């Protein structure tokens, strides 16, 4: 097998892994959008916030320490303990649920029935607010995250591919774990939505608010539930990104890649978010490898996804899996 082809295969595999992370962020968008029609610009920041909180709790950092020190003239930064990963993840989830409750109670409850653009603007505000709160709570320095996920080159794949192609693939263990977790998460969400009382109520709300009310579903409860689920997905995405490249504020920018993913997959489709994420992930890596680097001077990964989304907008605006837009005359 020619080396170029083996190389392309490796790039594809790595693209798939990157795509999984895009898909995870996109999934959070879809959950909220389906249930409430809110396009949550803050989803990326939620992932950042979750990762910051998790890293902070694990390190035993005192939240708002700068603020406390500035006001009271103290000098506290750390509690002096380390919280085990499992417990810290649980605590972070509690924080994300509290956030979901606060967001619904303080912001969106008062905006029910408003224009989508107003809801969208509110989420932009929320994004910057959350970024600020994250900074204030945990500080702006880059944190490393280690919740015990395996990292580094997968030796088995390296050896096997070397025997097959005479060329060892570099696949990170973390990416493999991330893919498995993402797959489990999606399966879990689908089962939850399909077979549980809350899942049914969620789908009901996503479909028709009025009808959902008439069968006894509380919209407020479902919206809090959905924001909590989105918070959970954000936490998972935050852990993956954070472990891979450190918990830093650029995380919220990466989340913007979820936009082209949604345009590809459709804003209302969970499978769409997954497939869209994988296509963008593989697409940008392969494009860079085959066309970008040799002909265009590289760095095409920055814009390829948006270009692809633009093409989709022109020819298939509802995305691959989105609900068809049919105008009846």
């Amino acid at each position, binding site marked *: 097998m020619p080396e170029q082809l083996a190389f392309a295969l490796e790039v594809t595999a790595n693209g798939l892994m990157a795509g999984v992370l895009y898909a995870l962020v996109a999934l959070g968008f879809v959950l909220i959008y389906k249930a409430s029609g809110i396009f949550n610009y803050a989803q990326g920041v939620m992932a950042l916030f979750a990762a910051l909180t998790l890293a902070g709790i694990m390190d035993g950092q005192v939240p708002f320490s700068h603020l406390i020190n500035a006001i009271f003239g103290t000098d506290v930064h750390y509690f002096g303990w380390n919280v085990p990963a499992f417990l810290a993840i649980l605590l972070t989830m509690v924080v994300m649920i509290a956030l979901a409750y606060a967001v619904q109670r303080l912001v969106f409850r008062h905006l029910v029935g408003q224009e989508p653009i107003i809801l969208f603007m509110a989420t932009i505000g929320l994004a910057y607010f959350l970024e600020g709160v994250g900074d204030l709570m945990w500080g702006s320095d880059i944190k490393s995250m280690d919740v015990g996920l395996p990292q580094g080159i997968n030796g088995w794949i390296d050896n096997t591919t070397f025997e097959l192609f005479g060329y060892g693939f570099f696949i990170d263990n973390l990416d493999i774990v991330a893919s498995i977790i993402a797959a489990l998460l999606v399966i879990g969400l689908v089962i939850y939505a399909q077979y549980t009382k809350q899942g049914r109520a969620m789908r*009901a709300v996503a479909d028709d608010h009025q009808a*959902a009310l008439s069968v006894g579903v509380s919209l407020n409860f479902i919206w809090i539930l959905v924001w909590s689920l989105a918070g959970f997905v954000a936490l998972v995405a935050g852990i993956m990104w954070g472990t891979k490249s450190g918990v830093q504020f650029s995380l919220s920018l990466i989340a913007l890649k979820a936009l082209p993913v949604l345009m590809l997959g459709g804003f209302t489709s969970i499978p769409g978010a997954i497939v869209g994420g994988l296509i963008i992930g593989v697409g940008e890596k392969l494009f860079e490898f085959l066309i970008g680097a040799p002909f265009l001077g590289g760095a095409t990964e920055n814009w390829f996804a948006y270009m692809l989304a633009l093409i989709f907008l022109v020819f298939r605006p509802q995305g691959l899996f989105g609900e068809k837009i049919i105008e009846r005359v």
Partner: protein
Amino acid sequence: MKDQADGYVTADGRQIGPVVMEMKNITLRFGGVEAIKDISFDVREGEIRAIIGPNGAGKSSMLNVISGFYVPQEGEVWYKGARRAPMKPFQVAQQGIARTFQNIALFEGMTVLDNVMTGRLTHMKTGLFAQSIWKGKAEAEETANRAVAERIIDFLEIQAIRKTPVSRLSYGLKKRVELARALAAEPSILLLDEPMAGMNVEEKEDMSRFILDVNDEFGTTIVLIEHDMGVVMDLSDRVVVMDYGKKIGDGTPHDVRNNQAVIDAYLGVAHDA
């Protein structure tokens, strides 16, 4: 008609129970417009109670007050012997008052069966955690709820379209599915907002039959709004007549038909009936 607290038997042998819901001096305003002006009436267990009136009389507003979509500025709603605090529509539904809508509010993305199953939501009691891990009572409960849903689907003769997405159904069938979903809640009061609006004659006959059958078979108390005078007179035990937000008549179809105010407002003047 004898006004007995425990109910009575009508001339044609129908068993009517005690008062289950009472509206007392309800007034509903939208800005300066009074949609409902000081209306009182009661609903008895097991009866079919119709609210009729010309366009814009406030019939739908009345139904929306009962189902919690509108909160009246004045007046009280009494339900099962207690004054009802102002509540949200979903709380009203949880109290056992189910409804259908004039413009059909179904879950278009779901199948008929799934739609009917959402009607069972108020009967699903197992907690979030047990449901999430699909253990314990959850499974037995799902089976029981499913059985009720299937029984209602059979009853309304929509077995053939159980797995069809609702968006593909005809208007008449959608109305029937919506009725099925409301019935699945096993409501103590069923509110029907123009169940026969926009239907052809055959569909109307089907729907009338189903409404009577539901009332017979399940003993469901039914409050319905209808335009079609003929249908109402045949179906209902008692009729409230509204015009311009006011109550102008209340009684058996026979009483109402001979009420001069009703004839003027609805039958005689507005239409060439």
